[in-house]
């Protein structure tokens, strides 16, 4: 309990100091609330085609209606759930896979390292998006878990490579040698001694895998390879583009979902960037005080 409160305190201090991280955290929080309680924010059933098509902006319809007569704002709010869930689930699974593969490779060494590294590098260099398109084309109307599977399969390798490099650099530190000399088990060494110093890299990894998931899934849904009958920002873009929303004079139908995707994406990217600055002090913004000190 005490550890938890000190962790929360540290997070709060970090967020207060870093404007980028703060902005990212606030956006993320809002989107998480949207994900948990979409019905609080949707005045209408997002799928119901009950209004006149292509209405402009009004108080009743802050973003107008689609050419099917659905309320754009309600669709936008309801779409948060799928994108955020996808980001969290794919980010989580990719990170686990990266940690397991990267650390096993570094810790076990030898032939296992060679094999795992080769596998990582091969998956890393094969361009993933065309591959994902082809897989989705074969499965047709990919559901949530198909998309998750494909994104995890193609998205873990970059993280695994980074994990391996950092674990290798930690492997021969004195405190790890000491743990080994004490006769601790491999499990203990890996989980208590090796992983905690890598926390910031693991978090950064989660964030970039989540960002990858959001953007790639949006692209897939945009070309109609997701399930086009579910509520998500990507499928909104698909329907908007198929009905030529831009040319037909209701651009918000197409532009608003992109802005939401970008909000989620920027939140992840901003947090990631802030974490980068934590793990690499050289990148921290130059404050006036630090600059004066450097000049003196």
């Amino acid at each position, binding site marked *: 309990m005490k550890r938890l409160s000190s962790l929360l305190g540290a997070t709060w201090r970090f967020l207060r100091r870093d404007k*980028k991280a703060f902005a990212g955290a606030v956006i993320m929080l809002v989107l998480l609330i949207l994900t948990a309680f979409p019905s609080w924010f949707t005045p209408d059933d997002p799928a119901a085609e009950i209004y006149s098509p292509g209405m402009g902006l009004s108080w009743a319809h802050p973003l107008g209606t689609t050419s099917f007569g659905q309320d754009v704002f309600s669709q936008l709010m309801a779409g948060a759930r799928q994108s955020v869930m996808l980001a969290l689930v794919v980010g989580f699974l990719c990170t686990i896979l990266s940690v397991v593969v990267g650390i096993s490779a570094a810790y076990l060494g030898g032939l296992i390292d060679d094999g795992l590294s*080769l596998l990582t*590098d*091969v998956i*890393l*260099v*094969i*361009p*993933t*998006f*065309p*591959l994902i*398109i*082809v*897989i989705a*084309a*074969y*499965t*047709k109307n990919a559901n949530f878990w198909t998309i998750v599977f494909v994104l995890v399969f193609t998205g873990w390798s970059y993280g695994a490579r980074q994990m391996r490099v950092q674990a290798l650099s930690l492997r021969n530190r004195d405190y790890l040698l000491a743990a080994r000399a004490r006769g601790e088990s491999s499990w203990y060494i890996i989980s208590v001694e090796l992983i905690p110093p890598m926390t910031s890299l693991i978090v950064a990894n989660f964030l970039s895998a989540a*960002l990858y998931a959001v*953007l*790639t899934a*949006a*692209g897939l849904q*945009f*070309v109609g*390879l997701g399930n086009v009958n579910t509520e998500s920002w990507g499928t909104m*873009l698909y329907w908007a*583009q198929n009905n030529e929303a*831009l*040319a037909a004079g209701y*651009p918000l139908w*197409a*532009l608003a979902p*992109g802005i939401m*995707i*970008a*909000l*989620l*994406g*920027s939140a*992840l*990217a*901003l947090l990631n*960037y802030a974490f980068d600055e934590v793990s*690499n002090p*050289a*990148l921290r*913004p*130059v404050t006036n005080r630090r*600059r004066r000190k450097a000049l003196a």
Partner: protein
Amino acid sequence: MRFIVRRIGFLLIALWAALTLNFFIPRLMPGNPAQAIVANFRGRINPSALHAIEVALGIGGHQNLVAAYFQYLGNTFTGNFGVSTGNYPQTVTHVIGVALPWSLGLLGVTTVLGFVLGTGLGALAAWRRGGVLDNLLPPSFIVISAFPYFWVGLLCAWLFSLTLNWFPSLNGYNATVDSPGFTWTFAVDVLNHSVLPAFTILISSIGGWILTMRNNMITVVAEDYVKMARAKGLTPRRILWQYAGRNALLPNLTGFAMSLGFIISGAILVEDVFNYPGVGFLLLQAVGNEDFPLLQALLLLITVAVLVAIFIADIATALLDPRTRNNR
């Protein structure tokens, strides 16, 4: 030398893995879509086209998996990808041949431009730590990098084409007034049509170069030899480009290869938004038409292109930087 041999070995293994993946994807999908596709086409198209699909998917009907696999490898190496069912009776090779120059032109120009501009801006931002460029560029490009490429394309099409009417937003050239050929008007037309797709890819991809270059540069500027150069009284311009810039550039070159796959992914959707007649547009059309021979060949083409580009970048890095040769 040993390094180059290792890289060639890796290239071959990656190529083999891509080929094998390509072979197994249609078979591993639930419900065996390869069989379903062939069954679906049976009776609707003539036997030779059906055979072409079977060749592309590697299901000869009478042979076992191993024989099919080797037949598939043989067909791939001889460039025999069969007939495109969506563009019947044209061959897959012909259809791709028409689309390829468009993509090569678009991606070639935007990637080189993005790399040069982004690297330059990144170096300048790091050089003046805390300056206008340094405060402005990283945060704005973090946000821009969070926008999907295709959405930036939609925005550009809406703003610069539908609203302001500056540039055309569809197709590679105006087919009603122009025909492909080596004429001045056609060249201008093509250029005019490529402005928006190129701008979209440039805006979306340049942030990556800026950020990596800036971060490398910050590390390099703190090195002793840069201090030494300052102490010698060299001009700042010379230190920036000849000393620090050159060394910070190397990791960016490796990043170049890595991000190529990412840029190509984005370009596929950008081509789709602008109906730009390149490989990406073709890929998505093939998806829509269930043109699986074309789909498989395109996947292979893109993969091989990226793998070869990475290989070239690796070799270039090794030639430019002795350190990478030793420690791998």
